[in-house]
């Protein structure tokens, strides 16, 4: 049973491509991955997932962390189907209610959670997110996951690992490692949510 790949936030109208008009802003922004590079990276992660989960009896469950983790999970699922012929199970897991920094920030809007119909008990679950940074999002996701059942294996796939971990967490599948300063911001853009594909690095002023 496959949950239809609905993408949280995709119904919002995408902003126009590259809105930075200030020359200083443009020069401070560096393009790290182009659309074709993103497609290649997604393909590579899909192949790695197939290799590492070949022995398991059931197909892996891809759980995207909204918003852009869900987009990435759907894209990975599509490529996995092309390469293996079997459609993987896909869902999304909003982790906002499990965050440990809720008191330090303005309230966040909650995004969609959709679990596979068969549940996650004893399955191979792959958490999918766009950027791995402090590791706190992944910690919250592990907490959230525990409430839904007990997977036999949980793995983590990310498009970008930018370092600066605050918790002992590492990804099983990494699209690209990007050395950054703590104050920089790495923005992943997807056509489904932003109108264009790119990974951009904005240096701290």
């Amino acid at each position: 049973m496959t949950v239809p790949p609905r993408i949280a936030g995709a119904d919002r109208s995408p902003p126009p491509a590259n809105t930075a008009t200030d020359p200083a802003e443009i020069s401070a922004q560096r393009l790290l991955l182009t659309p074709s590079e993103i497609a290649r990276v997604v393909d590579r992660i899909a192949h790695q997932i197939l290799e590492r989960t070949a022995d398991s009896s059931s197909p892996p469950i891809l759980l995207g962390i909204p918003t852009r983790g869900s987009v990435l999970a759907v894209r990975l699922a599509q490529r996995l189907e092309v390469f293996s012929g079997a459609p993987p199970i896909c869902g999304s897991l909003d982790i906002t209610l499990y965050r440990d920094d809720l008191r330090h920030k303005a309230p966040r809007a909650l995004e969609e959670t959709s679990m596979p119909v068969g549940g996650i008990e004893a399955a191979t679950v792959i958490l999918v997110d766009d950027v791995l940074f402090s590791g706190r999002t992944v910690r919250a996701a592990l907490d959230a996951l525990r409430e839904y059942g007990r997977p036999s294996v949980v793995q983590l796939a990310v498009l970008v690992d930018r370092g600066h971990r605050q918790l002992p967490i590492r990804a099983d599948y990494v699209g690209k490692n990007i050395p950054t300063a703590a104050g920089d911001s790495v923005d992943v853009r997807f056509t489904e949510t932003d109108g264009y594909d790119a990974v951009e690095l904005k240096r701290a002023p």
Partner: protein
Amino acid sequence: MPRHLLSAGDLTRESALHILDTTERIGQAIAGREVRKLPTLRGRTVVNLFYEDSTRTRLSFEAAAKRLSADVINFSAKGSSVSKGESLKDTAWTLQAIGADAIVCRHSSSGAPHQLSGWVDGHVINAGDGTHEHPTQALIDAFTVRKHLGDVEGKRIVIVGDVIHSRVARSNVLLLSTLGAQVTLVAPPTLLPKGIESWPVTVDYDFDRALAGVDAVMMLRVQRERMGDAFFPTTREYSRQYGLDDRRRALIANHGIVMHPGPMVRGMEISPSVADGPGSVIVEQVANGVIVRMAVLYLLLSART
């Protein structure tokens, strides 16, 4: 989102929709789970301050706070220092000293939660004050309407009965009209408040005429405990003119829903066959109550402190 939730009138269209969207997400997040508990408000304290009897509202707020892992203190005026003569202000200071992060206040005097909000640092949620307002009930009703009819905007909704004593009606009129519904109030003239002309509603005394083709009919409880005098000749006559029976039920739109905030007076306001019949969402309103209140507590308490 305002700092306190005292009146449905404090909510803009945007903030009301934000609460309803958050409610839906919370419903999704706990649906079909064995453990229906979230760690979101761990370590925060919610006080249920109830000066007036209430079972369902208190239970609903208590369940909501506990499902978000908050610590809950229930305070009912009966058997407390209030019966020894302690004032609301002194109680407020006590709660302040305890470190209450949120106070859910029900009081028989209109405006008591508003007063309270000036004395404490925590967030105050009005859980019904006198004949004034009950904003979370209005949010529950709007959420239920949206769930069944897709949207509140443009929907025709009839609210029937004891409007003058009903804080539920007052909050619903404010919220439903903010969200773009067309609201009609139906009641005997004696049960309509003064100044109703300024409310954003139409008024009709003929229940049959008002019901034709509406999307939702919301019955109110006849609040006998607040009636010093007779507001209508007999229970039977009230029931004949303003009770919802099978014949009247057939007048509303095919997709229409029947609502009641509870507790119901069966046989008088609503016939048992309608209350338990198709299109009745009365039990669901209670279930939705918990997730709506979870959303309100989350949005008020998770903000930067």
